C-alpha cells in the first residue's frame, strides 16, 4: 500500500467509510479522485459504458453537507459505487451491453439502485458486460470488450467483466454485479477480486434486465471479503416488488467476516469440479488454499456430487429457454431499437420486429434465443427442457447430500486464469466451459463467493477459490473466506492486487 499513500482510491470501501466519518477527506474529494482515475485509465481498460460525473458529485456534496450539519447518515454514505449496466437507473442509460438498448434511459430505478441511493452512495457510472449477460469474457458487449487490468491482452471474464475490472483497477471501490451462471464469481477469479452471489432471492431483481429468471441473482463485486459483506447488507433483503424475493432478513454476513479460526468447520472439496481439465497453476493454488483452511482448523473432506458433470448441459438448455422468453419483449414497439427492413416500402409490424431483432442482437444472443426457442418447441420440450429440469433436481439433491456431511463446499472458481481475446471466438462450447464450477450453484439456488488465492506459476495471473454454502446460510461462505483471506494476505504481506502491474506505467508507455 505504501506506493499509493495518500491516494484514497486505494483504500478498501470500509476504510473509505471510516475516513469519511473521521473527516480525513470529503465524499466530493473521494468521488473526484475516482473520476480523475477513470479519466486517466479507463481509455485502456474500458470498464465503464457510461460515467455520471455530475450525478456522482452532486450526491457526494449532499452527503458532505449533511455530515457538516451533523445530520444522521447511513454507514456507507459518501462511498461511491459502480453499477453493472444490467440494472435500471433513472437518469443514466441502461443498455445491458446491447445495441438493442443503445441510449435507452429507464423510467425507474432498480431496487438495488434505489437502495444504493438510500444508503447515500454516489453512483460513478455503469459498467460493461457481455450483451444481456450472455458470455464469460465481456467480448460479447456491443460496445467493445473490457481489458483485464492484470494484462491488457486478456479478458477480465464475464459477463460482469466491467464491474470486476473497475474494482481491480481501483476505478471504483466496489460494484454491483449479476450472476446467472458465474458472471460475478468468474470475473472476480480472473481479476484477483472478490465476488459473491447471494442465495437465490436474497437480493431483489426488480428493475434488473432479466436473462434467466430462475437463475439470475444480484451481488457485490469488491476487493475484500469485508467489503463484499457490507455491500451485500446494503442491497439485500426483502422487496415486495420481486415475487421471488425471500421474506426474511439478510443473513448475518457482516458479523461473519470477523471469523479467523475455523476449528470445527467441515469443508468439502467437490471432486467433480476440482481437478480434471483445470489449469495446473489453478490446481496448485487451490490445493495450497485447501491446506491453509486445514491449518486454520477446518476438517477437510472429499465430497462427490456426481451430477455436477451434467450441470453444464442442463444449464445450456434452461438458460436459453428462459432467455428466449425474456428477450421476446424486445419487439421494437415500446422501447429499444426499431429498424425496418431495407427495400420494403411499408413494412408490417412483424417485418419491422424481425429486422430490428436481427440488427439489435449480437451473435451470442441470437444463438441462445434460437437454441431456447428450439428447446421449448413442441415435440422437443420433454426431451430438452423437461430433461434439463430433471437434471436440475439431481444437482439440488447432490447439494443436499453434500451439506449433510459438510458446512461448506470449495472448488476452484474457474478452470483457467484469464484468457486472451478471441481464444474462444469460433467455439461457443469451449467458452461455455469457463463456468463449469460456478453453474451448479445457480441451478440449485445456493450462495457462492470467489476470493483470490494467489497467482498461477505459468502466467502470474490470479486464481480464485469458490466457497458454496447452503441456501440462506450465506454467512458461512463469508466466515470461511474471511479467515482464508486474512491468512493469505498475512503470508503475502498485503492484498494480491498489490502485485498487479501498475496501470499508470502502462499509460505512460502507451
Amino acid at each position, binding site marked *: 500500500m505504501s506506493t499509493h499513500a495518500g491516494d484514497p482510491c486505494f483504500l478498501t470501501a470500509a476504510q473509505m467509510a471510516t475516513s469519511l466519518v473521521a473527516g480525513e477527506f470529503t465524499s466530493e474529494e473521494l468521488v473526484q479522485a475516482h473520476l480523475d482515475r477513470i479519466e486517466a485509465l479507463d481509455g485502456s481498460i474500458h470498464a465503464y459504458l457510461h460515467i455520471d460525473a455530475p450525478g456522482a458529485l452532486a450526491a457526494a456534496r449532499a452527503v458532505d453537507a449533511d455530515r457538516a450539519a451533523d445530520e444522521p447518515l447511513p454507514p456507507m454514505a459518501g462511498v461511491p459505487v459502480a453499477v453493472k449496466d444490467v440494472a435500471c437507473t433513472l437518469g443514466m442509460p441502461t443498455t445491458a451491453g446491447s445495441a438493442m438498448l443503445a441510449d435507452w434511459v429507464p*423510467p425507474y430505478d432498480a431496487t438495488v439502485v434505489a437502495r444504493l441511493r438510500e444508503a447515500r452512495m454516489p453512483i460513478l457510472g455503469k459498467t460493461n458486460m457481455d450483451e444481456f449477460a450472455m458470455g464469460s469474457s465481456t467480448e460479447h458487449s456491443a460496445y467493445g470488450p473490457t481489458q483485464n487490468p492484470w494484462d491488457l491482452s486478456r479478458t477480465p471474464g464475464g459477463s460482469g467483466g466491467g464491474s470486476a475490472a473497475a474494482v481491480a483497477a481501483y476505478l471504483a471501490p466496489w460494484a454491483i454485479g449479476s450472476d446467472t451462471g458465474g458472471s460475478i464469481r468468474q470475473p472476480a477469479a480472473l481479476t484477483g477480486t472478490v465476488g459473491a452471489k447471494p442465495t437465490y432471492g436474497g437480493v431483489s431483481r426488480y428493475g434488473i434486465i432479466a436473462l434467466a429468471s430462475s437463475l439470475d441473482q444480484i451481488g457485490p463485486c469488491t476487493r475484500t471479503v469485508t467489503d463484499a459483506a457490507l455491500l451485500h447488507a446494503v442491497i439485500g433483503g426483502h422487496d415486495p416488488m420481486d415475487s421471488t424475493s425471500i421474506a426474511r432478513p439478510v443473513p448475518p454476513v457482516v458479523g461473519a467476516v470477523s471469523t479467523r479460526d475455523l476449528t470445527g468447520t467441515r469443508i468439502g472439496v467437490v471432486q467433480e469440479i476440482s481437478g480434471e481439465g483445470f489449469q495446473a497453476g489453478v490446481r496448485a493454488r487451490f490445493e495450497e488454499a485447501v491446506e491453509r483452511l486445514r491449518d486454520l482448523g477446518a476438517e477437510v473432506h472429499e465430497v462427490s456430487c456426481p451430477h455436477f458433470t451434467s450441470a453444464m448441459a442442463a444449464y445450456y438448455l434452461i438458460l436459453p429457454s428462459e432467455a428466449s422468453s425474456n428477450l421476446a419483449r424486445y419487439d421494437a414497439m415500446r422501447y429499444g431499437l426499431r429498424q425496418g427492413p431495407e427495400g420494403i416500402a411499408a413494412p408490417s409490424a412483424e417485418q419491422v420486429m424481425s429486422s430490428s431483432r436481427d440488427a439489435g442482437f449480437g451473435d451470442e444472443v441470437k444463438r441462445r434465443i434460437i437454441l431456447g426457442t428450439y428447446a421449448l418447441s413442441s415435440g422437443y420440450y420433454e426431451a430438452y427442457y423437461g430433461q434439463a429440469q430433471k*437434471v436440475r433436481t439431481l444437482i439440488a439433491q447432490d447439494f443436499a447430500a453434500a451439506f449433510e456431511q459438510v458446512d461448506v463446499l470449495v472448488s476452484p472458481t474457474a478452470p483457467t486464469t484469464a484468457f486472451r481475446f478471441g481464444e474462444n471466438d469460433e467455439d461457443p462450447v469451449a467458452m461455455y466451459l469457463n463456468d463449469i464450477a460456478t453453474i451448479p450453484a445457480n441451478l440449485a439456488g445456493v450462495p457462492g463467493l470467489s476470493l483470490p488465492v494467489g497467482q498461477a506459476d505459468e502466467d502470474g495471473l490470479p486464481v480464485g477459490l469458490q466457497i458454496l454454502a447452503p441456501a440462506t446460510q450465506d454467512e458461512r461462505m463469508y466466515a470461511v473466506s474471511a479467515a482464508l483471506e486474512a491468512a493469505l494476505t498475512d503470508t503475502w504481506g498485503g492484498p494480491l492486487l498489490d502485485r498487479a502491474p501498475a496501470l499508470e506505467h502502462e499509460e505512460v508507455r502507451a
Partner: protein
Amino acid sequence: MPALSRDDVAHVAMLARIDLSDAELDRFAVQLEQIVGWVDQVGEVAAAEVTPMSHPLPLVNVTRPDEVRASLSAQSALAGAPEAVEERFSVPRILDEE
C-alpha cells in the same frame, strides 16, 4: 435426437422473429448443431421418475391489496418509444397489404 439442420434453424429463427441473413444461417447452423449435440447428454442422465425442478426455491403466489398506487406517467412510459403519437405507442401496420 435428430440433428438440427439449416432449415430447422431458419424455421426456429422465424418463430423467434429474428430475420437472419444467409451468412448468419450458415454460421449458426454449424454452431447450433454442435451445441445441440452437446446438450443432448441430458437425455442420458435423468430417469423418468425424477421430479422436474423449475425453480430453486419453493414459490408461493404473491399478491397485494387491490388498491390504486402511483405508477409511471404516460409521458415517462412513452419516453423510450421508437415512435409515439397522441400519448400512445405508434406501431407499423399490423395487417398484410393484400
